[in-house]
């Protein structure tokens, strides 16, 4: 195929600004999907995506417009899935920046856009939703010009809903986005920018060929993994998968090569022809590192093997989360899992429950602390119970973020208040326009993990947006708060917090547990402690009455059955410091923490 007729572009925008809807219009306009089979957000194929109305995984599709082949990649807007965006950008020469004209540009979009510019991608900016009464394209265009330096008069105005301006947008893509530059005769180099696992076909990878060609049946070398696989099938998505014999330079498509584990076909991998390999791989990108951790346990211990199996299978599709076995006195056996962010955590958990029919409980999310010990060594601690004894610790560092918040100016006060309460330090503040403000803070990740996003949204009626990137570590006065039932610590509730909020956490949890732990035959102290020092205490008073008053007319059967049940129930209780606690009590306590 003549590379001059190819255009590769991503659509980047904030959550809900209309990427998937625009993709729908493009599919229709170019006749890619039979109108009879058209449905909204056509490319969002996961149940979860369709239900939540969000894109979780990037999707690519090939369409034809005015004699040109366009490869478009729809990306997720949520900040947790930012890595998906950067992968997509690496496969393109251009990007459509889509901004909701009633909202203006958002923090995350800005970050993605800077990234696209760094990679020399051509940006085609478009204001979407101009059909809305609340749309203010003038202001938005001025803002984009100010922060991104894109001339306001080149910014298109479209409605992905009505289809207004979509044709013009495609024309602009053809005109402005440069065609790919690779040559057929060069040594083959193709970039894997996404992989997913299909039950029947194994790993299906999305690839972008930069140089040379790939043909069916030929042997490929995966340069980073060092493995060799034969091409079983290559093809393009139109959006239905259509097998082809060859993918040439500049083309985007899929590759199936008999691979059983997505870990062997990681995003960022360069594939080359085994018989005539390229000298250098393409510039890859780093796999994102998990930032948020929690324990995930089956509510019913018998489901443990199924959970393991489910995690294995999910990992086939999502190499960005990690897990390893862990055990808890309160919750039994489970896994310590790492995620890119809270939404990612929520989504993985929901997929586990839904796609694998499991009932799960998760411990409170934690971040990875680094403890420096008095003997000069250091340890990473992503589970609070692993924090060494206070006497062995010299100091503890916590992971930091640089966060960018874009907010309407009238909420500046409340946003700054929130940031201050979360130990954030202001690094920069700038007006994007008289009405909108950019605030940049350095903040402990742990504070963001704790419902920061929800708080930000509710304080600004949903108008503020947030972007973040890792910003190293800082030392802080961090302590571990343990919860003790009858003087025995309950691991599932141990948490590392800043000293200033330790007492508060202790009080909250002891109160909660007092309500949830059933009364025993003796008084049960519930304490929150830092090291040996108790910071909060409650007592579950001994139960005084648990007896059947009467057995009427010799009905012993009912009574016996009741007692047998109680005896069975006792067996199922978790025993912590002689206290019998039903697992549900722990589960509710963790749920309430959510």
């Amino acid at each position, binding site marked *: 195929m003549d590379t001059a007729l190819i255009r590769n572009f991503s659509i980047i925008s904030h959550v809900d600004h209309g990427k998937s809807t625009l993709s729908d219009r493009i599919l229709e306009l170019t006749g890619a999907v039979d109108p009879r089979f058209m449905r909204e957000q056509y490319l969002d194929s996961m149940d979860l995506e369709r239900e939540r109305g969000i894109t979780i995984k990037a999707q690519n599709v090939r369409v034809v417009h005015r004699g040109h082949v366009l490869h478009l990649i729809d990306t997720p807007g949520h900040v947790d899935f930012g890595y998906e965006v950067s992968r997509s950008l690496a496969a393109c020469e251009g990007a459509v920046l889509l901004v909701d004209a009633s909202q203006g540009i958002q923090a995350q979009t800005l970050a993605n856009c800077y990234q696209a510019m760094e990679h020399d991608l051509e940006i085609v900016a478009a204001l979407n939703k101009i059909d809305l009464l609340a749309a203010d394209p003038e202001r938005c265009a001025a803002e984009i010009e100010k922060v991104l330096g894109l001339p306001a008069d080149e910014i298109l105005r479209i409605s992905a809903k009505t289809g207004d301006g979509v044709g013009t947008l495609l024309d602009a893509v053809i005109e402005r986005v440069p065609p790919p530059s690779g040559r057929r005769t060069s040594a083959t180099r193709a970039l894997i920018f996404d992989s997913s696992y299909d039950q029947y076909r194994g790993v299906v990878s999305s690839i972008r060929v930069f140089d040379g060609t790939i043909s069916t049946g030929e042997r490929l070398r995966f340069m980073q993994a060092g493995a060799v696989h034969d091409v079983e099938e290559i093809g393009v998505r139109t959006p239905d998968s259509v097998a082809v014999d060859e993918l040439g330079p500049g083309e985007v498509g899929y590759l199936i090569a008999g691979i059983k584990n997505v870990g062997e076909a990681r995003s960022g991998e360069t594939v080359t022809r085994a018989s005539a390999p390229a000298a250098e791989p393409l510039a890859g990108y780093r796999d994102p590192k998990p930032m948020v951790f929690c324990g995930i346990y089956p509510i019913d211990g018998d489901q443990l093997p199924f959970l393991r199996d489910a995690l294995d299978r999910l990992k086939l599709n999502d190499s960005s989360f990690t897990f390893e076995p862990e055990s808890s006195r309160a919750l039994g056996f489970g896994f310590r899992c790492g995620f890119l962010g809270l939404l990612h955590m929520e989504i993985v958990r929901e997929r586990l429950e839904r796609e694998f029919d499991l009932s799960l409980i998760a411990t409170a999310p934690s971040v990875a602390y680094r403890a420096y010990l008095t003997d000069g060594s250091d340890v990473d601690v992503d589970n609070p119970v692993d924090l060494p004894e206070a006497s062995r610790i010299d100091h503890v560092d916590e992971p930091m973020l640089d966060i960018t918040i874009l907010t309407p100016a009238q909420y500046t006060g409340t946003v700054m208040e929130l940031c201050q309460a979360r130990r954030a330090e202001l690094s920069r503040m700038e007006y994007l326009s008289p009405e909108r403000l950019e605030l940049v803070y350095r903040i402990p990740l742990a504070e963001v993990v704790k419902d920061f996003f929800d708080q930000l949204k509710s304080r600004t009626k949903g108008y503020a947006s947030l972007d973040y990137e890792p910003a190293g570590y800082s030392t802080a006065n961090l302590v571990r708060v343990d919860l003790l039932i009858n003087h025995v610590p309950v691991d599932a509730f141990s948490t590392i917090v800043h000293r200033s909020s330790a007492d508060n956490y202790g009080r909250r949890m002891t109160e909660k547990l007092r309500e949830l732990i059933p009364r025993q*035959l*003796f008084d049960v102290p519930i304490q929150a402690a830092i090291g040996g020092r108790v910071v909060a205490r409650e007592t579950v008073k001994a*139960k*005084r*009455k*648990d*007896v*059947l*008053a*009467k*057995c*009427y*007319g*010799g*009905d*012993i*059967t009912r*009574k*016996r059955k*009741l*007692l*047998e049940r*109680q*005896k069975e*129930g*006792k067996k199922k209780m978790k025993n912590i410091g002689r206290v019998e606690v039903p697992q549900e009590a722990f589960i509710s306590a963790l749920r309430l923490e959510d």
Partner: protein
Amino acid sequence: MTAGYAAYAQPSAREMRRQVPTSRSGGSPFGVYVHIPFCRERCDYCAFATYSDRDHLMRSYVEACVEEIERAYGSGDLPPASSVFFGGGTPSRLPPEDLVTILRAIPLKEGAEVTVECNPEDAQIERLSVYASAGVTRMSFGVESTLEHVLATLGRTSSASERADETGGSVPEMLADDVRQVGFKSWNLDLIYGAASETHEDWHDVLVGVVSMSCPPPHLSLYALTVELGTPLASDPSRYPDDDVQAERYEYASAFLSAHGYVWEEISNWALPGHACRHNDLYWSQGNYLGVGSGAHSHVDGRRWWNMRTPERYIRAIKTGSSPVAGEETLSEAEREFEELALSLRTRRGVPESALPTAPADLVLREGGRAVLNVRGRLVANDLTARLVTGAAL
């Protein structure tokens, strides 16, 4: 207060063991329970199989009971009854002659204990005399409370206090007088504690009023008000009893009664020496008994069965010659063992010490190889029952 009864010492553990009835051997006690499912009005807390709108069934019900007894005894393997208990419902609601008709159908052992439950308003001399002359030895009166406001929040109406007023005494005094006149050997009075309007002082007054009479009841059943599903009480949370309050009432009553010579027999039962209820003890010692009438439960040697719950269906079954049994179970060896221990733990006999290894020391008295619940232990008997160890450990 009471002059006649000194505080009796608790019997020693050895004595207690001797009193264990040998329920499975021949010549052992055998009871007959007769269920009378009629009441004048349903009390708010009551979930028993009883009805206030079916008095028209009484005649055929009595006939059915007689027939069920004859059938049961016709087979020839049942021993004569060492105890008979008419419960309900309100047995005293039957015309006394009808009750006697049923009683006459039951073969009795020499010296059998025959108890009739009676609502205080039915306790006229004439009725009680008919009972006594037919062989009834023991009356059990469902007084529940001597205080009008307590009865009101219990949702129990009684006209007994009017008659008592005429005699110038309390209801218990009136009953004691009736019992003495007719000459029953023994009698019981039921009380309920934990009603919403009942204060600690009320409870004290009720106990004192009953125990300090010149002839106090030699047997007392004290029941904690219990919320049963589907009752009017259950749909009125404002009247729910509080566990801690009930525990206090129980402890208070327990101390009070033992100071007045009553011996604790079973969770909810106390008796002056020699007045324990033999029939009740059959239940607690896994003894054998035949239940007659609708909803009645029977037990013989590890097999338990029960009759249809409504009187109509029960009568129809008997009249058509079919079985009135609605369900049954045969206990496995393990179930039987657990049941025996669970029941025994409720009584002053307790269980072998080795059967209750993990109970906190302050809830259990351990003496002579037996573990017996003390007052606080009795209040959490369910929890302790769940700790019973069966099998090899014994």
